[in-house]
């Protein structure tokens, strides 16, 4: 017995998993470029959110059709991966259907994989139709021009190929299991509610040919899975992994609560403290680098916002519920997330190319990716945050960038400057004297 197959299998497995691991480390390093934010509290509530929202898909089903289809693909993905475990063991040790000893339970297992695979095929075809035939608005939106549109379709094609190979492999196996007098070491194992019908194609085909088909489908299937695993790094499909940490680390406060900038609090307290000495030296240990207010690039965002960017799967539910986008403004919350990821990848590549140090490239997330016009169109209504099936907050990025525009560049629209001057001078956004605040009491 030759061990060439097994060695070859081990090599592609190590290459596939190894390259993926290298890229996962890059993602982690890039996420850590973000500012620190404490999302380690309330562990039980965080686990609960993850269980409900990521594992339980509770926000997906708010849109019932896509939610239901997504659950099929999601359950299919999770369950069929049990089969991948068997394939890996078979591949490494040269066994065939190593879990077959489980008998009736194995039949149930393989039977349910088959049914799920068929359902996944149907769901994925419906997804393709929704994107390319029905052309649902959020899928043909200008955000998705070029690579993002192809990416979405590639993922779906991939799933079709993988599921088809899986069923073809089973069909050939089923055929060989039932060859009268037996064939090699194929023996009845598993039940094949779907592929038994495909197996009829092999009637009258030479056993040797069917065997080659079975082996080819087996190898292509597992190689395909390893390629797909590595494709994740380049794709929006990364959400299948990151949805879990993303829902765990999401903001737990009321959606209306925007963070208070601590650096500002310190300065305001100093201003309001009559005993403060404005000429006093900065206290020991104070940051040598003056804090930048707000964000104009990815390094100014916090690490959860960067995790959000990698997690976004560009479904566009946010954009389709955004009042600004609905009424034709340039703002698209999905684009905010896509731009943030694109810029973060660019910064990461820059670091890789320069031996671990970021060399300024005269580009920033603000202006080169996201324009002030987009930022100023936001009504801060939280519809995007509410809609996101994995609790991403485009709003927090928009707010941090507005802060940069206003506090670092004094670049607010004129009318907002007038409003802020009024608040500063007379304690109201309009030009009314604070002394007149109670006049309404005596007016008729």
């Amino acid at each position, binding site marked *: 017995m030759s061990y060439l197959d097994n060695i070859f299998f081990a090599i592609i497995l190590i290459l596939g998993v190894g390259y993926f691991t290298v890229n996962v480390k890059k993602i982690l390093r890039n996420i850590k470029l973000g500012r620190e934010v404490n999302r380690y509290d309330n562990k039980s509530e965080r686990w609960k959110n993850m269980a409900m929202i990521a594992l339980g898909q509770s926000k997906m089903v708010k849109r019932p059709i896509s939610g239901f289809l997504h659950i099929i693909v999601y359950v299919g993905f999770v369950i069929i991966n049990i089969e991948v475990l068997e394939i890996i063991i078979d591949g490494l040790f040269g066994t065939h259907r190593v879990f077959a000893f489980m008998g009736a339970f194995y039949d149930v297992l393989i039977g349910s994989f088959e049914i799920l695979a068929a359902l996944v095929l149907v769901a994925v075809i419906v997804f393709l139709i929704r994107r390319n035939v029905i052309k649902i608005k959020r899928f043909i939106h200008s955000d998705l021009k070029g690579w993002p549109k192809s990416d979405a379709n590639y993922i779906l094609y991939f799933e079709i190929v993988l599921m088809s190979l899986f069923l073809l492999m089973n069909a050939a196996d089923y055929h060989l299991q039932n060859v009268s007098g037996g064939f090699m070491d194929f023996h009845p194992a598993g039940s094949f509610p779907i592929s038994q019908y495909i197996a009829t194609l092999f009637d009258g085909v030479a056993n040797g040919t069917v065997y080659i088909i079975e082996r080819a489908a087996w190898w292509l299937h597992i190689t395909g899975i390893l390629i797909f695993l590595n494709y994740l790094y380049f794709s929006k499909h990364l959400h299948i992994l990151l949805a879990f940490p993303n829902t765990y680390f999401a903001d737990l406060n009321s959606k209306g609560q925007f963070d208070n900038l601590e650096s500002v609090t310190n300065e305001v307290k100093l201003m309001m403290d009559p005993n403060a000495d404005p000429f006093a030296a900065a206290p020991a240990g104070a940051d040598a680098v003056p804090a930048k207010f707000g964000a104009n690039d990815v390094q100014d965002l916090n690490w959860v916002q960067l995790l959000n960017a990698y997690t976004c799967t560009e479904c566009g539910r946010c954009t389709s519920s955004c009042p600004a986008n609905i009424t034709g403004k340039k703002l698209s919350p999905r684009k905010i997330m896509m731009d943030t990821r694109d810029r973060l990848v660019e910064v990461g590549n820059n670091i890789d190319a320069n031996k671990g140090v970021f060399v300024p490239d005269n580009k920033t997330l603000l202006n080169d990716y996201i324009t002030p016009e987009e930022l100023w169109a936001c009504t801060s209504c939280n519809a995007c945050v509410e809609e996101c099936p994995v609790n991403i907050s485009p709003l927090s990025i928009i707010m941090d960038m507005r802060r940069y525009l206003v506090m670092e560049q004094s670049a607010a629209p004129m009318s907002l400057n007038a*409003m802020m001057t009024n608040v*500063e001078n007379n304690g109201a956004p309009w030009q009314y004297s604070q002394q007149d605040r109670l006049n309404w009491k005596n007016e008729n």
Partner: protein
Amino acid sequence: MSEILNVPTMAEMLAEGKQPEVLFWVGCAGSFDDRAKKITKAFVKILNRSNVSFAVLGTEESCTGDPAKRAGNEFLFQMQAMMNIEVLNAYEAKKIVTACPHCFNTLKNEYPELGGKYEVIHHTQFLKSLLDDGRLTIEGGQFKGKRITFHDPCYLGRANNVYEAPRELIQKLDAELVEMKRSKANGLCCGAGGAQMFKDAEPGNKEVNIERTEDALQTQPQVIAAGCPFCNTMLTDGVKNKEKEGEIKVMDVAELIANAQDL
């Protein structure tokens, strides 16, 4: 109708050595905007009728800083917040009610970290509690059987998950509460939030308030109820734009209750 409103200030209360049950935070719109002042007065009439001991800050009140914060001016926001907190803490305020969801959200969520910890409730929640305690009775009056749709203010609904209090109050009027296709957590913004109230909209193909008004009109309401002075303005403008102001009124929930009782 021109009964005299009893509106004590915190300063007056303090001079008498009294602490009110609740501090009414009027807000800038409620103090200065002609339309919103009517909401303020309607709410005060109900408070007076229910013998609620309340007080306002009057000339000691200042903008919460909400529009500055949403516009990105964290400095101005925190300056306003700390000045207001100093005043509120000096009066030992415990419970605050406001008819503005923006003031409500800011006072409730963003002041505590800066040293201002109060129980903050929206006026619809407060009215609901008065109702539950038997201190307020609601009659349908002119609104009995009317079709009323409620627009969820973003900073009351999605931002703070208050959806039921205003609806329960409307139902107490024996009115027919009809929901828009986008309501509660899926409600569409009126277009005023995030400091949009104070600037022109970016180029687009429609105004947000028109889009939202169309949602409301689809329910064929006689009254569009709101719980926010800014939403009220936006929807009133929307109804005017559709030339429906003769048939459809935009009213605050407090006005509905006060008007039903001819207060």
